[in-house]
């Protein structure tokens, strides 16, 4: 077997990817993800095996694509499911380790605090401190620059007997220098660090908590002991008071329970679910109805200019949705939009974005406009496949066009197009782009606690829960997404069955 440069190139690529994969292992491990590290090792082992063993030759070709699907489709789905059993939200954003770190880094005021005065020394500044308790305790810094930025600016203090020469900075100027002062850490000769505690005061600060051997956080003031409560996802003291920040923890079926039993979520969920089904079915029906009528017309040989018509009719599908949807949003605008200006001539002034049913009608109109060309194209292809003899026979029997349509075209097209109709239903069921760009789900229901709107689909509802108002509850959004996953999976399986039936 002759080895071409291509072979060596690919082999080199394989070795490089292997090394890159190996480099990830310690990275995962350091990131406190031992499972990922282990998974990576297993994965690399399997890969080496497949790419060296002749028995698995075909899999060498299959692996890249299948891996991509596993990483980019299956893994995010599994991850969504995983998140749905946690309390991941803006209140519980961090992992437990990082939440612990944040608490450990928290500083509280120590025993010493000082009145501060700032003096100018040329274009530099000097800090002067006087203790509250003891008038004789005074400290001063050498002239230094006030720096802003990420790193703290440590300046040493020396004992002083009098205030430094130079002009004290006036209060109004002190405000302007705040950023620099906040960043300044004055270090006492004994080593204690002083930080600005208020506009004209510096105080010693020390860590608020120390980590105990059992994982609890002991307050350095000796009063409180914080224990991590894995159920609530907070550190709590003995009285059950919760301390920010919360951390992610497992809450079991809690989110699903909330969707179905908590009235705040349960009630909008059912309404939105009903509208989602209604929207997806009506939209599929409308686009199919318009699409098939146009397809029949465009397949009619007596008609001229069919090519031009086809192109013009296809246009709405070709224009990117992120352009055409905002165009409609502008045209339908209640006060400034062209549609209401035209309707104004007849004395009408419909509130497309404020009245629930009108908003729903608008969403349907816009999406039908966006979707009919796709159905038209599909139907055109399928109508072409219907044998001509059927129409000739029906013509001899004296049937009219309507009879042809309902007795021949429609029945023969329904079976092959059924899976595509289901796919269209599933697509519109999850048509986040349309809702996000057109109405953002509005007009909002006035009687629900959780923000939800009349045109919200389940996906846009989860989008709002996760990324907009109502506290960025990622876990709850994932729970709803997982429910929708289930529905889509059912549709997909039904679709596959139909698809198979057609094939045979």
């Amino acid at each position, binding site marked *: 077997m002759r080895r071409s440069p291509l072979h060596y190139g690919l082999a080199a690529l394989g070795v490089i990817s292997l090394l890159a994969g190996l480099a990830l292992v310690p990275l995962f491990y350091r990131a406190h993800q031992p499972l990922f590290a282990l998974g990576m090792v297993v994965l690399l082992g399997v890969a080496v095996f497949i790419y060296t063993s002749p028995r698995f030759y075909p899999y060498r070709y299959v692996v890249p694509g299948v891996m991509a699907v596993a990483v980019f*489709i299956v893994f995010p*789905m599994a991850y969504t499911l995983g998140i749905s059993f946690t309390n*991941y939200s803006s209140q519980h954003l961090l992992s437990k380790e990082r939440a612990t770190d944040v608490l450990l880094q928290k500083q509280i005021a120590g025993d010493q605090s000082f009145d501060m005065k700032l003096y100018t020394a040329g274009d530099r500044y000097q800090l002067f401190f006087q203790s509250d308790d003891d008038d004789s305790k005074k400290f001063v810094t050498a002239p230094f620059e006030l720096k802003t930025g990420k790193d703290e600016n440590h300046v040493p203090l020396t004992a002083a007997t009098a205030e430094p020469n130079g002009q004290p900075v006036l209060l109004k100027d002190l405000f302007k220098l705040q950023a620099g002062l906040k960043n300044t850490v004055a270090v006492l000769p004994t080593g204690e660090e002083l930080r600005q505690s208020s506009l004209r005061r510096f105080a010693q600060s020390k860590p608020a908590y120390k980590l105990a051997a059992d994982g609890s956080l002991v307050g350095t003031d000796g009063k409180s002991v914080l224990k991590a409560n894995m159920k609530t996802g907070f550190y709590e003291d003995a009285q059950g008071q919760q301390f920010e920040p919360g951390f992610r923890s497992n809450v079991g079926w809690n989110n699903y329970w909330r969707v179905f039993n908590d009235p705040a979520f349960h009630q909008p969920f059912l309404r939105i679910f009903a509208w989602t089904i209604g929207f997806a079915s009506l939209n599929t029906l409308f686009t199919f109805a318009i699409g098939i009528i*146009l397809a029949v*017309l465009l397949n009619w040989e007596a008609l001229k200019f069919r090519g031009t018509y086809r192109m013009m009719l296809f246009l709405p599908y070709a224009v990117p949705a992120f352009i055409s949807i905002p165009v409609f949003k502008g045209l339908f605008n209640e006060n400034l939009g062209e549609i209401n200006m035209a309707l104004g001539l007849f004395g009408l002034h419909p509130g497309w974005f404020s009245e629930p049913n009108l908003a729903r009608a608008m969403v349907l109109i816009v999406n039908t406009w966006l979707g009919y060309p796709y159905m038209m194209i599909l139907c055109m292809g399928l109508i072409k496949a219907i044998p001509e003899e059927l129409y000739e026979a029906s013509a001899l029997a004296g049937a009219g066009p309507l009879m042809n349509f309902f007795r021949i075209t429609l029945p023969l097209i329904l079976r092959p197009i059924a*899976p595509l109709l289901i796919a269209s239903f599933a697509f519109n069921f999850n048509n986040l782009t349309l809702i996000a760009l057109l109405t953002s789900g509005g007009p909002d229901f006035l009687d629900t606690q959780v923000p939800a709107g009349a045109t919200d689909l389940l996906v846009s509802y989860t*989008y709002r829960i996760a990324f907009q108002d109502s506290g960025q509850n990622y876990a709850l959004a994932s729970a709803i997404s997982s429910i929708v996953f289930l529905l889509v999976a059912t549709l997909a399986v039904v679709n596959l069955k139909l698809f198979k039936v057609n094939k045979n």
Partner: protein
Amino acid sequence: MPVVLKKSTRWRVLVAHIGLIAFIALTVFPFLMIISISLRPGNFAGGSLIPHSISFEHWKLALGMSYVDGDGNLVKPPFPVLLWIWNSVKVAFISATVSLVLSITSAYAFARMRFKGKGTLLNSLLLLQMFPSVLALVAIYALFDRIGYYVPWLGIDSHWSLALAYTGGVAQHIWLIKGYFDSVPYELEEAARVDGATPFQAFVYVLLPMAVPILVVVFVLAFLGGMIEYPVASVLLHDEQKLTLAIGSRLFLFNQRYLWGDFAATAILAGIPLTAIFMITQRWLVSGLTAGSVKG
């Protein structure tokens, strides 16, 4: 079609023409309107379809140029539109390239080789491509947020992250390419094999050159998909300088700051090339779709 043309047919043809023209007028109306709006001075609605006075102010802004308005004020472009377009092109190009490279060899194996689990894998791919990525938005966001903590260039607000997130289209691409490979006769590769070529050589030197059209089509479709995607981009990108056009264009139409005219010019600027590319490739897309439904 009926062999005998009746007199009534002529009437029907006329009615069909009128109906089609009326319907087209209705559907094309928004496009005409948007052209008119982009040429109208000011950002307010109103006025007729044919503008009274033509002004290119919105076009200048869309192209990143400033202009001086009637009162002598310098009006600067509200958003970096050209930068957004460039961002979109970058992301779409990377994602289309990556997903095409990842799907080619799999499609070849599915079309030409026998191995265990082939049918199951193919069916799973067909099922998986029906799952929309919008359902995994939270996971995508959370994943990249966490990856970004360790690897900043692969976190939130990174074009690499977005391009990778778009790679989920692979399942669909494998099916499309496989369908095409299936339609190419096996004899040529067989001849190459007889002459001593490895399966890999037969694939690279014989089959791939014949499959260039489908590769181009899949690439273009993946590219367009990346250009027009909204949901994933909207959760991964926040920095105004990093936005893609699809999410950036949303910023034009807020009730507080309603830049109707500027939006119109931007929409046409970005819409025409995308629409043109799609019109050219849609033939293959549609044949792929219907072939998928008929042949499997």
